[in-house]
């Protein structure tokens, strides 16, 4: 028991016997029921970083080794696994109405009046080699500000070309998907891989202000008539909107900084600043009124903490994440209930909190779901959620029981989302998992049934 591997074993064995892995839960449990402290913020970039063991007499620069390996395609795969679940959502903004903004506050949210801007990431399918058919539209990202008004970003053949593509195309409906009209898209490439410049996802805050991103950021303030590229200092992996504010996870590591940071800007202006209280962040962005939820990135990757702000990001509280260092997707349909869908290694799991994320309990019967990490998830309400990859499962009793739902023709689901308790959408594949096999489905009964939405 005297070499490195044995010392690791000895120390972890000792920590096991001391219950080091249980202490956090005890502390967390002790906090249950107590009002969340509002004044304690996290120091920017603080915590989690410590000295790494080095061998004497010539430590190698692991960053060099890892940076070289980072070029491997497998990185794109894992980022996809993490990000495909990391959709975010803000509440819909009922067209520049101050009264509507009041309705979106945390305290006034009710089951009937908490419409949420449902958004989605792009899928991780490789589309670079795929050429859309003329006149066809392949939905990739969805955003809504009400149950009737949606924008769908999709792939289409590039204008004036019969051979090149794909290009991004944005379609707008104001009648719940019965009719669509085309809206200008940014004059940039559709990004089919995380490291390709351009955009892959779409969010709209209201009828005027919207964002296309991933990895670059583009903004419109005239309903999509014109778009401008926004210099934000890094790659945008997620963006969510609430109460007239846009929040983004921006990976600034390429510029030499520590990692991804949480930034925000008024939706009507391109005035992005870092929310330093969050420190390093990673995935799982969700905003609801003045509540901001995001998973930490403290340390060297996806952190084990859920960061929760009750004051629009001015300060954050840190709670243990169900993911224990793996990526989670969060949804807070109505405070204080927070759903979490997290990777656990080889399979994902669903958890639920009734105290704004301070404590989570499993929200799936043992062995029932057995879903891969890339499963899609969405919460319709405090008690109803839908999750699935090849087969959709729906619970309406806080996760105690699940029933199989969904159309049989869908072979796999890339995204699920809800705009309110009953209205939602899903992006599903028919046939092989490919961007060109992706279709938009609509539910009006809280996920019990989904219907194909034809987009011209």
């Amino acid at each position: 028991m005297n070499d490195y591997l044995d010392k690791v074993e000895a120390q972890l064995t000792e920590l096991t016997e001391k219950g080091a892995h249980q202490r956090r839960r005890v502390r967390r449990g002790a906090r249950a029921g107590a009002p969340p402290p509002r004044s304690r913020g996290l120091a920017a970039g603080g915590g989690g970083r410590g000295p790494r063991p080095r061998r004497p007499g010539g430590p190698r620069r692991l960053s060099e080794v890892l940076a070289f390996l980072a070029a491997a395609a497998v990185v794109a795969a894992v980022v996809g696994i993490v990000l495909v679940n990391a959709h975010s959502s803000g509440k819909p903004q009922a067209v520049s109405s101050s009264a509507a903004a009041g309705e979106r506050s945390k305290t006034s949210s009710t089951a009937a009046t908490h419409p949420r801007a449902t958004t989605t990431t792009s899928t991780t399918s490789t589309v670079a080699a795929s050429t859309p058919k003329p006149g066809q539209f392949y939905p990739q990202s969805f955003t809504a500000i009400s149950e009737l008004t949606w924008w769908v970003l999709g792939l289409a053949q590039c204008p004036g070309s019969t051979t090149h593509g794909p290009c991004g195309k944005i379609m707008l409906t104001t009648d719940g998907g019965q009719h669509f009209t085309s809206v200008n898209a940014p004059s940039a490439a559709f990004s089919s891989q995380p490291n390709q410049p351009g955009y892959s996802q779409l969010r709209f805050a209201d009828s005027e202000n919207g964002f296309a991103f991933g990895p670059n950021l583009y903004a419109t303030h005239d309903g999509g008539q014109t778009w401008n590229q926004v210099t934000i200092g890094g790659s945008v992996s997620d963006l969510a909107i609430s109460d007239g504010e846009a929040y983004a996870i921006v990976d600034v590591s390429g510029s030499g900084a520590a990692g991804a940071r949480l930034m925000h800007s008024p939706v009507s202006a391109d005035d992005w600043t870092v929310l330093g209280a969050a420190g390093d962040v990673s995935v799982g962005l969700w905003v609801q009124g003045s509540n901001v939820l995001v998973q930490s990135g403290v340390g060297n990757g996806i952190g084990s903490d859920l960061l929760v702000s009750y004051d629009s990001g001015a300060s954050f509280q840190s709670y243990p994440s169900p993911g224990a260092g793996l990526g989670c997707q969060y949804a807070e349909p109505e405070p204080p209930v927070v759903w979490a869908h997290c990777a656990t290694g080889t399979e994902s799991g669903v958890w639920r909190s009734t105290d704004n994320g301070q404590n989570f309990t499993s929200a799936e019967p043992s062995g029932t779901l057995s879903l891969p990490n890339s499963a899609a998830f969405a919460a319709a309400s405090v008690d109803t959620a839908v999750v699935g990859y090849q087969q959709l499962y729906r619970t309406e009793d806080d996760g105690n029981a699940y029933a199989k739902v969904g159309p049989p023709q869908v072979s796999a689901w890339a995204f699920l989302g809800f705009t309110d308790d009953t209205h939602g959408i899903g992006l599903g594949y028919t046939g092989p998992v490919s961007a060109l096999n992706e279709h938009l489905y609509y539910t009006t009964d809280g996920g019990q049934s989904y219907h194909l939405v034809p987009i011209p």
Partner: protein
Amino acid sequence: MDERPRNRRQWSDSALLSAIAARDGAAFGVFYRRHLPAVLAFLIRETRDPEAAADLAAEVFAAVLLSSGRYQAQGDSATPWVLGIARNKLLMSFRRGRVEARARHRLGFHAIALDEGDLDRIEEVARSERGELVALVDDLPEDERIAVRSRVLEERPYREIATELRCSELVIRKRVSRGLARMRDQLKETGSA
């Protein structure tokens, strides 16, 4: 009444993880030694750097300790689960350009320095285990080899693999299960498990 054998080496992974969650240090030791070769072999193969692999292996098993209470058995072996953690830790390290250490920090794990002797041993173990693991995978029948690689290491959905190979998901599941069982048996026979 506990009907498990007294010798923890005879316990299933699931039983060991349950015991670990309940502070059984000896169970952790058995689990660690059972899975370290595969984890180390995987990490060495991916990083080609014994120092990074050793560092990451410690982080993986710290994460195992933290997650032990949430493990849900999906089969006889926790190998896919452990390798899934290893892959996530590895790829997050790639993404950040630094070796993951969050789980160790959370546990209060004290840094351990590596010396040349450690590296020599790790490299030796890595060579043998890597060669053994690669050989084990490569020795699998072709259908099982493809299924194990696709599902366990690449974590692709069963349906996607089935579509690519033009067979049913059930067939792929059986191939993965058979392949893992065959590898586990081989490891036991060679005394590595």
